[in-house]
């Protein structure tokens, strides 16, 4: 018995919709009741939020396409300026019902133009009978555009005097959106995270045709058992499932186990999945490398991950510069005299004495220091004399471009630039060796 019921839409479509969006029945029925019938005016703007991959975009897309509602779907990250965004909406609007007819490029710089052109477009497309839906995905980007964009979209129905509903999709709550000048409050709606049961159901739904659904469901069960602790992202889980399924099937293909022999299969796959958790999930190695690895059956030890290459080769003086910068960042100024003044080459002593203050200073993070202090420390920790050549100074700037140092306070670059050391203690240890 279908849980989705609506008088305006044929029952077959609703049934199909239900099968396409599992575990989101309540949200869909809510939306449907909001939308009402085709010709009815709907709520001017709806705001839907929920965590990453809780199916917001997917549900909206399938809902609108299966019910064949006229709609425009725009990703706000992609159209990063208001002009691009508005033009894109108009282009999609023109093409959404007129079909193959080639439309002339539209130019739309302001919202005023947009409202005018929008009215024209709606009139020409004979859409007046139905509600038009404009879906803005990743709507948090709207906040960074001009101040009038977001309020205008929220009351677009009123501005254009047409039957239009704007749906905003976002990952953050509405409270962070609300502009300080006040605006029309949209109808907010929350998409909760999928539970483990939901994930199981969704993942098992698209099983490969050559294996039975039960077999795949068992596999998904194992996979979730390993990964659910660290990752609840549906996209990520699907990716992992696709990557590791071949390995899971291996005993079956070889004929060593049949599809029912779950325990054996579990034994086979479990260490493999653990390995995958350490490497693929963290993107230490890419998925194509992982597949090749599975194919060869080799050890992943030979394939070093991204973080294995942490060693950085630096020129001799750059190393000392970086160490000096680190010391300057984490040691208070008053200790400089004690550490560097009396003797030469007392690096070891410095490190030893620094230990007392380390805990507090490292929690506070690096502090900015002037260039002179950096050079003074450099002269005292390098054994032989260092000529203050242009090379040394250019090395400082190249360290800044490498993001090992960062410049603080942009305004007085000429007469006393201040820097901050951004590398960690481990990195410095590796360099100082």
């Amino acid at each position, binding site marked *: 018995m279908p849980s989705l019921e609506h008088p305006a839409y044929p029952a077959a479509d609703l049934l199909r919709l239900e099968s396409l969006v599992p575990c989101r029945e309540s949200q869909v029925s809510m939306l449907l009741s909001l939308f009402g019938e085709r010709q009815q005016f709907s709520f001017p703007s709806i705001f839907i939020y929920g965590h990453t991959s809780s199916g917001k975009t997917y549900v909206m897309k399938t809902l609108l396409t299966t019910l064949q509602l006229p709609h425009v779907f725009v990703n706000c990250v992609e159209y990063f300026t208001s002009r691009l965004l508005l033009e894109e909406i108009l282009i999609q609007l023109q093409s959404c019902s007129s079909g193959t007819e080639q439309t002339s490029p539209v130019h739309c710089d302001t919202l005023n133009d947009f409202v005018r052109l929008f009215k024209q477009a709606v009139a020409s497309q004979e859409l007046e009978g139905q509600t038009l839906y404009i879906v803005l995905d990743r709507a948090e980007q709207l906040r960074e555009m001009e101040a009038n964009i977001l309020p205008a979209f929220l009351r677009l129905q009123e501005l254009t005097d047409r039957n239009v509903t704007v749906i905003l999709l976002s990952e953050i709550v509405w409270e962070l959106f609300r502009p300080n000048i006040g605006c029309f409050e949209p109808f907010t709606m929350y998409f909760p995270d999928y539970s483990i049961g939901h994930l199981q159901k969704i993942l098992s739904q698209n099983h490969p045709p050559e294996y039975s659904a039960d077999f795949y469901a068992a596999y998904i069960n194992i996979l979730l058992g390993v990964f659910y602790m660290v990752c609840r992202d549906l996209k990520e889980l699907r990716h992992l499932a696709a990557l590791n399924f071949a390995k899971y099937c291996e005993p079956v293909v070889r004929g060593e186990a049949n599809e029912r022999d779950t325990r054996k299969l579990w034994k086979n796959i479990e260490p493999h999945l653990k390995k995958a958790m350490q490497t693929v999930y963290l993107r230490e190695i890419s998925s194509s490398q992982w597949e090749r690895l599975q194919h060869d059956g080799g050890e992943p030890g030979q394939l070093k991950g991204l973080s294995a290459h942490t060693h950085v*080769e630096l*020129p001799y003086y750059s190393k000392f510069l970086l160490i000096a910068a680190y010391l300057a960042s984490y040691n208070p100024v008053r200790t400089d005299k004690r550490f560097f003044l009396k003797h030469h080459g007392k690096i070891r002593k410095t490190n030893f004495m620094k230990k007392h203050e380390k805990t507090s200073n490292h929690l506070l993070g690096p502090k900015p220091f002037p260039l002179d202090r950096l050079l003074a420390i450099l002269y005292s920790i390098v054994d032989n004399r260092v000529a203050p050549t242009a090379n040394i100074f250019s090395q400082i700037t190249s360290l800044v471009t490498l*993001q090992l140092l960062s410049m603080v306070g942009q305004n007085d670059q000429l007469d006393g630039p201040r820097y901050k050391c951004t590398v960690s203690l481990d990195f410095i240890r590796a360099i100082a060796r």
Partner: protein
Amino acid sequence: QQIQENLNKQLLGNLVSFLSRSHSDFQEKTTEWTCRMKFREIPTAALVLGVNVTDHDLIFRGVSDVLQDNITPYVALLEAKDCPGIKNLMQKLMGQLMNCDIDVDSEEDEDSVRVSQNRIRCSMSSLISWYDSVTKNTDSETPSKKRNSSSRHWQSPPVVVIFKDMESFTTKVLQDFIVISSQHIHELPLVLIFGIATSPMIIHRLLPHSVSSLLCIELFQSLSCKEHLSTIIDKLLLTSRFPFKLGEKVLQVLINIFLYHDFSVQNFIKGFQLCIVEHFYSQPLSVLCCHLADIKKRVYSLSHDQCENIRRLPSFRRYVEKQESGKQIELLTNDSFLKEETEKLLEDLHVYHENYVSILRCLHVFTSSLPKYPLGKQIRELHCACLENQVWKTEEYESSLQLARMLNKTDLVTMLQQCVEILMSSSGKEFDRTVEKMKEFLTQFQNLEAEASQERDVSVSPQKELQKKTDLYHLQKTLLELKESRRSKKLTKFEMLRFEVVDYIDSLVRRYLVPAEDRTLHEIVYFNAAAVLRGHLNAAPRTALHTALNNPHWYLKNQALRCDGGGISNKAPDICIVYKLHLECGRLINLVDWLEAFSTVVTAAEEPNADAASSDQVDDVIHARFIRAVSELELLGFIKPSKQKTDHVARLTWGGC
């Protein structure tokens, strides 16, 4: 000059081979990527290049050339400084892609492109439509026109976007770009290449997990720049092909700059080129620095003055002094005789170089495997040591010989084999005998091995043999042999041979690795003005400024300005006086005190007995001069106005540096 051309060619060859190595696997990967698309991941190559940023430009240009030749015509190079926002990035990207398209499509519809370029909607969708149209064009186009190009690329060539300096891009731009392009990966086969200077961890630091999970990253490590340097040194300096050589000190300066400062091969090459230019500019006899084939012609075209120049060379004078008196006079007076002699000497020098290089390599084979590397791990260190003085007189050489005497046999044999290979490949004629000698050593070693095994057999069954031998004479003989072999077996035979080998190597070194400065006419091919080079390459702006302000006569070449001791002369320019006075002050300088000191110095010589009335009222002109000098100092960055105290300025520099 031809040598410089050679040099560049060699460098490029070097780079191309290096690139092709890193890209052979890269290309096969791209084929595989097409099937990977379904995961909505953008294939990405992370190129870890090391910190020598100056070299990267060349590498990236090479990469894009290679890609354009082999894979795809659509390559865009993006730099961080061009892309402060996502908008600029898209504009830049589209501009580059469309431009390279024009190049491919000849220029038939250039004007239409030009028009539309002004009002391009810089978005991904327009990029996709452009891409569609372009690929459709290439598909439908008649193969007669561009068979060669389209057959090399595939049906839908990927669009490669290279981020030159990943570290400097702002996080947001990269994230947005990746998110956008991952949305369209189905329509637009995009490939990203990140140039990374530090470590690949930067990707994780720059991109959050939600974004980096859209990438399919593979890592490529380029050669370390130190290795790169050694190959270049190997190819440029340690060959007899280029007549030009670097002296020890110069080489040391170049290598120091490289290791201590920038790790930049590019700069090393530039320094080398500077040496060449400087050498040919400053040394009048450098015409003779050419290939062996040209020497004869050039020597005979020498003028009388140039002959005099040769006679003036210190190494040549030393040579003359060693000759007997008749020949001395001939050499010093007769030009044509001198020319003949010069030619001979130059040929000698050339042969010396050939021998030098190969023996140096042999010695390197020996020393590079010794524990603790007394003579250095790299061949360049050995080269420097040999150039500096007679290498066999140094302590390190002694200790390394000591160590070499303790090598085990397998190592020794492999080393000898390597040496034989090196010597065989070198063109020197004198080495035939050396090679033979080495081979002899090798066979001796083999014999030794055989003997040793035989002896083992013998020693296992001495008793048996004794029983067998009934003949008294034979018995005596075998006993004697046994005794002999027992004494010599472990001590002498192998060790003797080892000593022999080491001594032989020693003798080779003494004969061939004579430092170049002992050779006659070395000035012609060796460039040894390290101080000049250091002055050119190691700029020290602050020191220069200090000397200019402290000793103005250094730059102004005016003897009157020379001052002695700490005194401040009033003839110096105003700014010098002000500078010297400010050196004596603390962190905050009182302007009034400063002005008074200035006026005393300036007026001191003019009116030694200035009356009291004018001393407390400073002259307007002097005041103006003072203000001007102070503002000049501020412009140079020595002082800045301070807000802590009124009428005070803060000093910004300390010490002599």
